[in-house]
């Protein structure tokens, strides 16, 4: 079966896209934007208010993409893997945590001073128990994702992978997520899983 990019979601510069189609647009600060999107697209989470901004961003895009795909819940928990990357790691939260050190350190912020917490939030919500990897790199690059996903699918370690770039630092943010699967039949909007097509998503 062919490895395909079965869906993608991007939130950047106040614009939300699903499979290249514009879903939502608002010229507002990122905190308010995410709040509006989770309500508008009904992907609310009881712990959403407690998450750090990196987790809120990744969780929101992941839920919109997973909801559109609809089939990830049909996989066994260990069959779904996640590979995310960004440039600033958890720096956005690290700065906030550092401020609290002036008085008493905030435990709630401390728990988010690792970037892979965004993966945990998505996995806990959806019951995914497959491989998890969070990489830190200067720029989004298909090579970060292609080889690990290719290997995991080829070796049958995973059957579906949610991957992409989730970056936030202050008001600068970019979340571009994509799903890779090996469906029996290729549908419209699905493209071959290769370096060129992944890089196109990051443009």
């Amino acid at each position, binding site marked *: 079966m062919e490895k395909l990019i079965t869906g993608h979601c991007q939130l950047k510069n106040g614009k939300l896209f699903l499979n290249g189609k514009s879903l939502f647009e608002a010229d507002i600060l990122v905190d308010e934007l995410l709040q509006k999107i989770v309500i508008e697209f009904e992907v609310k989470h*009881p712990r959403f*208010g*407690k998450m750090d901004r990196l987790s809120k961003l990744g969780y929101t895009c992941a839920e919109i993409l997973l909801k559109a795909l609809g089939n990830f819940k049909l996989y066994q928990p260990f069959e779904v893997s996640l590979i995310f990357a960004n440039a600033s790691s958890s720096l956005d939260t690290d700065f906030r945590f550092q401020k609290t050190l002036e*008085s*008493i*350190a*905030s*435990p*709630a912020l401390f*728990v988010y001073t690792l970037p892979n917490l965004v993966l945990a939030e998505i996995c806990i919500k959806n019951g995914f128990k497959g491989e998890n990897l969070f990489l830190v790199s200067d720029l989004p690059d298909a090579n970060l994702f292609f080889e690990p996903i290719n290997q995991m699918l080829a070796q049958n370690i995973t059957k579906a992978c949610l991957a992409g770039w989730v970056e936030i630092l202050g008001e600068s943010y970019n979340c571009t997520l994509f799903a890779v699967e090996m469906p029996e039949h290729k549908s419209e909007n699905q493209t071959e899983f290769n370096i060129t097509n992944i890089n196109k998503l990051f443009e």
Partner: protein
Amino acid sequence: MSNFIVMEQLIFNLKEQIIERLNLSETKPEDIDSEAPLFGDGLGLDSIDALEIIVLLQQVYGIKITNAEEGKKAMKSVKTLAEYITEKQA
């Protein structure tokens, strides 16, 4: 001011502070039952929230919980928390 009014004001303040500190953005003070458990079935707080409440007590009320059992009793509900603060500040 009567002790009852002082206690009711403290309970209200605590509810507001808990909402703000724990980012319970969709909860209003009147949504919190003063006698409902803070953890588990009631407000559904977790262990990290417990640590945040300990920090809140220290920062706002100058109370440091040093005894785990005492802390556990104090953090049963907003009401027990208010009673604990009143007792420590007496």
